[in-house]
């Protein structure tokens, strides 16, 4: 009797252990795969099979490091140039897009070559590709100058046109930008042109991904997985409007198409000429005639995905500046 009792107790204990084991396994499985998915980081491995191969690799690494420096400098140079290139670039967007695609393709190829530490043969190819990349950057900066020249020409032309319209009508009419109605209802023009008749001129757009290091330093990164925060800045000049306090709206679109919001208290919706849109944050400031103001904002998210981040700046429901930032 006692034996059967103790066997029963033993059996129940075993069942309990088995149950807890199954529950733990299920939980562990879920957690492991969830974490794995979230924290998928590129892992660089070192093969230390022989001393000779290590020595060869050290030389290759030194070459790779110098190449990486050249590459980083080239990418950085282009990034700063892109900020202003994208601004007012809508009219020349097609060819520019093509060139940029070539550039990004080339950049990705170089990144993958430089990442592959085991393969030293491709370093020559990497050097060749970096030279090509530098050439492309030069081409793009030349293109940037073209865009700026074109922009100045259009701006001058439109200024003259709007003066011609104003003269026969009312002399004391306020600029369209300060009317309560959306500009499109007053002067139906295409977006890329309308922004130049706005009283405000935007320039030097910049969107940077930042990483906070262990010693509380903030440095720029180009990797989505490393990003802790996005910061943006731009210069807004009150070209011919009166002294006023104005409001600009910032929209940062993530690669999945969703708008990156600063917080529930700081983000919301607004009516643009394209319809109702969600905005990331708003900025209000005073600006006097002829004054140029440098404005900054920052956005944080739990997770950043790879791809293009589009920053748009709106005023009075119209887009006045745009920039694309790639995080790899």
């Amino acid at each position: 009797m006692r034996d059967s009792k103790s066997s029963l107790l033993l059996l129940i204990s075993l069942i309990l252990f088995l149950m807890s084991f199954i529950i733990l396994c299920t939980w562990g499985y879920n957690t492991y795969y969830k974490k794995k998915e979230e924290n998928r980081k590129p892992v660089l491995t070192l093969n230390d099979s022989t001393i000779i191969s290590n020595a060869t690799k050290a030389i290759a690494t030194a070459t790779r490091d110098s190449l990486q420096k050249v590459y980083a400098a080239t990418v950085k140079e282009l990034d700063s140039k892109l900020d202003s290139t994208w601004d007012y670039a809508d009219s020349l967007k097609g060819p520019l897009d093509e060139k940029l695609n070539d550039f990004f393709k080339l950049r990705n190829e170089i990144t993958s070559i430089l990442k592959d530490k085991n393969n030293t043969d491709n370093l020559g190819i990497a050097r060749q590709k970096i030279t090509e990349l530098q050439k492309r950057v030069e081409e793009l900066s030349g293109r940037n100058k073209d865009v700026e020249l074109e922009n100045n020409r259009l701006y001058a032309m439109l200024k003259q046109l709007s003066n011609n319209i104003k003269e026969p009508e009312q002399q004391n009419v306020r600029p369209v930008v300060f009317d309560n109605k959306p500009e499109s209802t007053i002067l139906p023009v295409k977006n890329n042109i309308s922004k130049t008749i706005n009283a405000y001129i935007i320039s030097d757009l910049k969107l940077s991904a930042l990483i906070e290091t262990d010693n509380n330093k903030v440095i720029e990164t180009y990797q989505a997985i490393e990003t802790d925060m996005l910061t943006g800045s731009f210069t807004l000049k009150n070209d011919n409007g009166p002294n006023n306090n104005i409001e600009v709206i910032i929209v940062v679109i993530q690669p999945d198409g969703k708008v990156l919001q600063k917080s529930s208290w700081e983000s919301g919706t607004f009516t643009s000429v394209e319809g109702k849109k969600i905005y990331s944050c708003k900025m209000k400031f005073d600006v006097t005639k002829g004054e140029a103001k440098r404005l900054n904002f920052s956005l944080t998210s739990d997770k950043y995905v790879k791809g293009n981040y589009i920053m748009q700046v709106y005023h009075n429901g119209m887009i006045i500046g745009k920039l694309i930032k790639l995080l790899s």
Partner: protein
Amino acid sequence: MFKVFEKHLFLLGCVCVFGTSILFAQNNLKLKYNKSEIYAGIEVGSKGVKMSLIEINRDNQKNLDFNILKDSSVNTDFISFTQPVFQATLISLKGLYNSAINDYKLTPQKIFTVISSGVKIQAEKVEKSIWIRNLIDSFKASINEPSRQVEIVDVLQEAKLSHLGIVPSSRRYNTFLIDIGSGNTKGGYFPNGNISDFKLFQLSWGTKSTANATEKRLEEDKTITNFHKQLYRVLSGSANDEITYAVNLSNAYNMSDNIAFSGGITWSVATLINPELIENSVIPVTYDEVEKFYERIFINYHSLSGDEIVKTITDQTLNKTIISKEVKRVNQVFDQQSLLAGTGLLLKIMRQFEGIYEKKQFYLVKNGQVGWVSAYVDQSISNQSVAK
């Protein structure tokens, strides 16, 4: 010897199953923060008993960051103070408490039980305060926890806790929070830059009381046109006098940059005005937006149905099923008349802050109902830590 070993083995097995099931139950909840703890706040309110499972972020020491994991409620109408309702409230209270312990594996120390100010006020008004005492004693006896604390929160404490729970600390001292309830409106702000001083704001008008006052004026003509007309009269009459007086007395216009509204009507207006921001707990709005929405309820109520609202959404990244479901929930809670009454009252209060030169920023808070419970839980945890 073997017997002792078997006993230990059995006990160890039980502990393992218990431990892993806790882990499993809590892991099933969709947590938002990396470092957080789960608490339950059970509140006996005027309409019923409500349990909020709250995840409190332990990473953020400055702000109270919380995430609502689950919201369960049982409608019992406790303030009618009848024997069947008393029993129903007691059963609900015990049921939700047991659910927190058994289903979510929370320890009694992580479960907070409170009686809301609405119940207290109503009980005092009809001299039934003893019913609250009896409910608390019966609850303690039924769960076999004689030392359990069931606090009766007063209106000032509730308004202050709501502010602390809803408004982020960066906006704490320049935000006036107004909670529009069904029978009254309460709120306030911190005028002196500290959380000790709180300026209370109260109105005897709420969504339901405004709708009731309007209905009384309808007589034979029960049409929505007449309701709209009579509502205008109600809001322009004694309601207007009280609102103007209370806002002036509060001095909130001079002291606040942000005016935040919470309460059931606020949740419904926020959901219908900005369905695109369905996932956001707070929606910034302008006076003009709410005014247009008020006219839309009257003229084009059909456009506020789930199907019609979803049709207007062009953003492909938004989940239309969730939006449609939430809009339908709003339409179930508020019909056209109560939506008009509540929005009319909201507009009337907003109007007091809509200056010609100085514009205030208005916010509609959707999850206001759990704000004060969350702050209560947070405060209780802090007090427990200090006591230790």
